């Protein structure tokens, strides 16, 4: 995209954001907003006092989310290779994934509290469960994302298994893997947060609850903005990596120009 094109696509949403923030500020000054909705400036004002606190709690959440995310990615990779290597294994494994995905985490959380107690093992587990299914689905879809003529081409070229994997399956799965990684990152954060709400000393979930119980409205908002920021940051980082690695245009195997 040209710089002008980028500007044209970024300017309208940015303008809306700025307008919304300004509107909130004015509405607060005019006294139209309830006490539970602070002006953006009030949220910004508590940052200096809360900074150390925020960094401490965000560090805990980030660590649990990252570990859970990696555990989920490893499990997804292992199960996906099992699903694809055994005839007929794909359907039951994916069905199991769907089942895990639609079980409400909040119902599982108390059970895991009993089993593994509170602490980072719990947060990591819940973060992993929360981000598992999109990763599994993306990996399975990705490794199946080759069309018939390309597979025939590799057959006619007498490629061996390893060559098929390295030259065909891995590159063509990358767009799917990145898409799954982008979806799963915020889910890992959310899972951590929910687990922390079950009771934690450290973590943004704990910080929100402290602020909520002491009715410290700007801090509740600040914490939530931080979580959204972390999630957007994780998403953006993966998107950036994707743009660097998957740089071959929008479609998979290209068709007719």
């Amino acid at each position, binding site marked *: 995209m040209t710089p002008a094109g980028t500007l044209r696509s970024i300017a309208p949403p940015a303008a809306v954001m700025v307008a919304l923030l300004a509107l909130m500020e004015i509405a607060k000054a005019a006294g139209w907003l309830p006490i539970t909705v602070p002006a953006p400036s009030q949220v910004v004002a508590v940052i200096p006092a809360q900074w150390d606190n925020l960094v401490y709690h965000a560090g805990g959440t980030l660590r649990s989310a990252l570990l859970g995310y990696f555990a989920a990615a490893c499990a997804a990779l292992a199960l996906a290779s099992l699903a694809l290597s055994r005839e007929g294994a794909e359907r039951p494994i994916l069905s199991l994934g769907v089942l895990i995905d639609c079980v409400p985490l909040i119902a599982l959380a108390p059970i895991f509290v009993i089993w593994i107690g509170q602490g980072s093992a719990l947060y990591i587990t819940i973060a992993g469960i929360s981000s598992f299914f999109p990763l599994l689905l993306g990996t399975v879809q990705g490794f199946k994302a080759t069309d018939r003529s390309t597979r*025939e*081409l590799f*057959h*006619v070229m*007498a490629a061996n298994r390893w060559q098929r994997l390295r*030259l065909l399956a891995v*590159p063509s799965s990358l767009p799917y893997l990145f898409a799954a990684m982008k979806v799963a990152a915020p889910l890992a954060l959310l899972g951590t947060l929910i687990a922390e709400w079950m009771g934690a000393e450290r973590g943004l979930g704990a910080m929100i609850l402290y602020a909520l119980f002491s009715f410290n409205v700007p801090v509740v908002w600040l914490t939530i903005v931080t979580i959204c920021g972390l999630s957007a940051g994780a998403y953006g980082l993966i998107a950036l990596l994707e743009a660097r690695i998957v740089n071959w245009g929008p*479609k998979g195997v*290209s068709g007719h*120009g």
Partner: protein
Amino acid sequence: MTEIAISGVSKSFSLGKGEIQALADIEITFPSGSFTALIGPSGCGKSTLLRLIADVFPPTTGSIRVGDHGPDAARLSHEIGFVFQDPTLLPWRNVVENVRLPAEVAKIAPRRDPAALTTLVGLAGFEEARPSQLSGGMQQRVAIARALALDPKVLLMDEPFGALDEITRQRMNMELLRIWKESGATAVLVTHSISEAVFMADTVVVLSANPGRVSEVISVDLPRPRRLDLMRDARFNSYENKVREALFGDDMKVPA
């Protein structure tokens, strides 16, 4: 010398509980260095026949010989070049890298220089371009260059220009003839177009459907090199009519 001999070949596919017979009693020989066109209605098994020669799957009965050995040996020694209907390029590789792919897989030095092949198919200056930056015709040129990378003795083409517009198609056909002549390969072209079949081939094999059988073999005795003005020639038209009659049979007779 690479002659392709097909004798007593039939091919069935299992489909659900039943079975469909794609080809029955195919008996043809493609002489070494010849250009043969396979033409027939949809479902006559012409693509299947091409894939049998390429050892994509084995015949149900009968045998196929490519040169001195079976299709599997020919494939494993990288003697077969295949052009699909879709360009089937790897989108993450640029033009030269796509052309180099067969050599990379075979772990041998390219038998023909990828850059020179790119020039041969008229893509000089596009070596570094990604497939998504090329038009459909250009992508198909890359696919042809790739098929030639290991200097194959057999060149199999499955409606390679089917998705292109008529003008591009004519131009590509002319170039394909030039490239084929220069390569000396035994070429088999699957096509839906009567004039394309006559223009390109030494022999037009007409297939009929359900199951696919050879209904007629027509030798096209027209001089080479062939140029577009050949299409105005009365002999060209009479060959076209022969193929048309073989395809449509009684429907071609003028009603009384």
